[in-house]
């Protein structure tokens, strides 16, 4: 109890509260601008945090993260264009409601469901993270190796695009993490005689290049597209009776989001679609879904915002980020002296509880700031794209170079941006690249330590402990399942290709 009170003392400082208000408000705006998502928002705000203390800086970044996930729903409802991929499912019912003149009701449900999902997942985080951390203390090098392998496979397997392309991107990210001095022997790896590369590649310039700069290139390619006419944006919160009628939908969406968010590699977009699919099966008003039914918005928004809290469970307790956004948050935590992992809840419990409190305050701030933010969107949509993109380029440069003050990081960001653009055009998912870079060092050090423990016998990894054996079995099952799914998908595609040919051939 003393710990929680002390954590509340850390979170309720004027600096942290100001950071929450600014971060959440900016996150809503950034999330609402199509194409800029949580990662771009975090990229822009990361350099501002370097002069701040740990809690204030994390409050700002958590505000941007949660705000941007909610902000994506505003454009999804107003112009049928989700500001972030997480809000794609919100368009199914949000935009039809706008077309029916119910934009205020749609935005009200989106805001309330986001708040509800976010707070519920924070409560779950407070209860689950310490339990998981207690269990995580049993993890040695070999168990960590198996766990990271499983997480990496899940992330590659579930990432958008082909499995092989996800795997090659994951290996690329893993390779990036090996550049520089070897942490065990000190030998230089892939430095090609360049002294500046001895310190290795930093995560932030790679993320900045892969997401922010490549987004500028993608937007530049599509700059000829016409602007959309924006309807009047208003917001009306649902009353208690309306909330009571749809409470089950709110709770179901929030639980689905919380569960999916805690699994590595899934993220808010997957949670929103799974929750929407559940609503299609279970909602009493399911016949209206897709035609402007608030249950659709509730399913999507409560689940995608529930992910924001639960995604911190594996990140904080195990040091395994669930997606790119949490990988970036993890990078930011390391910069500010918090090292996520099995020891975090023991060594820095007060800081972790302060982050939980910050998460709850952010969700409240999101509810309060929603009304003034939505009014701003009518003006923001009129801002020329060039100013937004010029700003992103500048923030990307500042973000990349200010982490270590090394100008080489700028070159890394620029090259990664060009590489990421080419990969995006080729249908390669970028999330495995970043996750590979984050998990790479843990995977390498745990493998090499494990080999030292087992005197070079890799086969003994499988029988080292019950946890390790279970994890390796799960890896095997995942590989079998992925291979079978791939073969079935391939067969279905072959069959689909053959079908249209048969009528013409029969006529001939």
């Amino acid at each position: 109890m003393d710990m929680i009170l002390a954590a509340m003392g850390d979170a309720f400082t004027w600096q942290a509260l100001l950071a929450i208000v600014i971060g959440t408000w900016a996150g809503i705006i950034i999330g609402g601008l199509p194409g800029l998502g949580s990662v771009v928002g975090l990229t822009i705000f990361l350099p501002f945090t370097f002069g701040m203390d740990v809690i204030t800086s994390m409050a700002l970044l958590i505000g941007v993260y949660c705000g941007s996930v909610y902000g994506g729903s505003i454009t999804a409802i107003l112009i049928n264009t989700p500001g972030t991929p997480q809000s794609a499912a919100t368009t199914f019912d949000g935009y039809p409601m706008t077309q029916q003149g119910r934009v205020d009701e749609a935005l009200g449900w989106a805001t309330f469901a986001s708040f509800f999902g976010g707070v519920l997942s924070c409560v779950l985080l407070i209860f689950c993270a310490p339990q998981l951390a207690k269990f995580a203390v049993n993890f040695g090098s070999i168990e960590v190796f198996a766990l990271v392998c499983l997480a990496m496979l899940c992330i590659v397997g579930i990432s958008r695009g082909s499995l092989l392309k996800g795997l090659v991107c994951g290996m690329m990210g893993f390779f990036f993490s090996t550049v520089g001095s070897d942490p065990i022997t000190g030998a230089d790896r892939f430095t090609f005689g360049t002294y500046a590369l001895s310190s290795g590649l930093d995560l932030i310039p790679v993320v900045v290049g892969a997401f922010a700069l490549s987004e500028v290139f993608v937007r530049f390619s599509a700059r000829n597209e016409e602007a959309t006419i924006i309807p009047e944006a208003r917001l009306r919160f649902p009353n208690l009776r309306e909330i009571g009628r749809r409470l089950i939908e709110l709770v179901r969406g929030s639980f689905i989001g919380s569960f999916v968010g805690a699994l590595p590699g899934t993220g808010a977009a997957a949670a929103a679609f799974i929750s929407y699919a559940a609503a299609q099966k279970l909602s009493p008003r399911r016949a209206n879904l897709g035609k402007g039914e608030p249950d659709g918005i509730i399913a999507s928004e409560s689940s995608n915002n529930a992910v924001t809290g639960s995604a911190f469970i594996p990140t904080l307790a195990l040091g395994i980020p669930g997606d790119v956004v949490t990988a970036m948050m993890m990078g930011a935590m390391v910069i500010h002296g918090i090292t996520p992992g099995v020891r975090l809840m023991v060594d820095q419990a007060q800081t972790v509880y302060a982050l939980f409190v910050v998460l709850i305050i952010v969700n409240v701030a999101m509810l309060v700031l929603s009304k003034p933010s939505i009014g701003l969107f009518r003006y923001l949509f009129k801002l020329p794209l060039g100013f937004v993109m010029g700003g992103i380029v500048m923030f990307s440069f500042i973000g990349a170079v200010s982490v270590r003050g090394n100008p080489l990081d700028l070159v890394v960001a620029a090259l990664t941006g060009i590489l990421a653009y080419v990969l995006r055009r080729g249908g390669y998912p970028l999330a495995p690249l970043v996750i590979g870079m984050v998990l790479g060092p843990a995977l390498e050090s745990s493998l090499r330590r494990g080999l030292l423990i087992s005197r070079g016998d890799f086969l003994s990894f499988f029988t080292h402990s019950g946890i390790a054996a279970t994890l390796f079995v799960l890896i095997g099952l995942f590989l079998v399942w992925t291979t079978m799914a791939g073969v079935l998908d391939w067969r279905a595609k072959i069959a689909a290709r053959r079908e249209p040919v048969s009528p013409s051939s029969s006529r001939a």
Partner: protein
Amino acid sequence: MFASLIHPRVLTALALLLAGAGLSITAWQGPDNAMLVPRIVLTIWCVVALAILIGELIRRVPVKRVTLTPLPLLMAAILIAAIATASLGFLIPALPLVALTLWLFRIRRPLPLLLGTIVIGGGLWFLFHHVLMIRLPALLTNGVI
């Protein structure tokens, strides 16, 4: 056959395979202990890149008509500005880069272009470098610019 070979997706897969192979050679020439994991990673990279290349060749996605865009100019400008920062400091390469970005995104009236460059380029640099005291690379040793 030749047309399918110069498809961007095939070229990307080929470039990935060649990059992986080149890095593998470096990894196999390095010390055994330090290069153990990179060797495994790069071997998987090469095998998967080869599978992707074969897949792209079999798939035969139709080649889109190539149109000239100034995108390579924007990419080159960002890369040149990034390289120049090491010797010229942050501000001097950033200003023309922001101006070019605004110009390419069709902000071409002189006043918005000038104001945009000064506010986005110079303003943000001043905010971080002099107000927030987050030091960016500087041209002069005293750090003024």
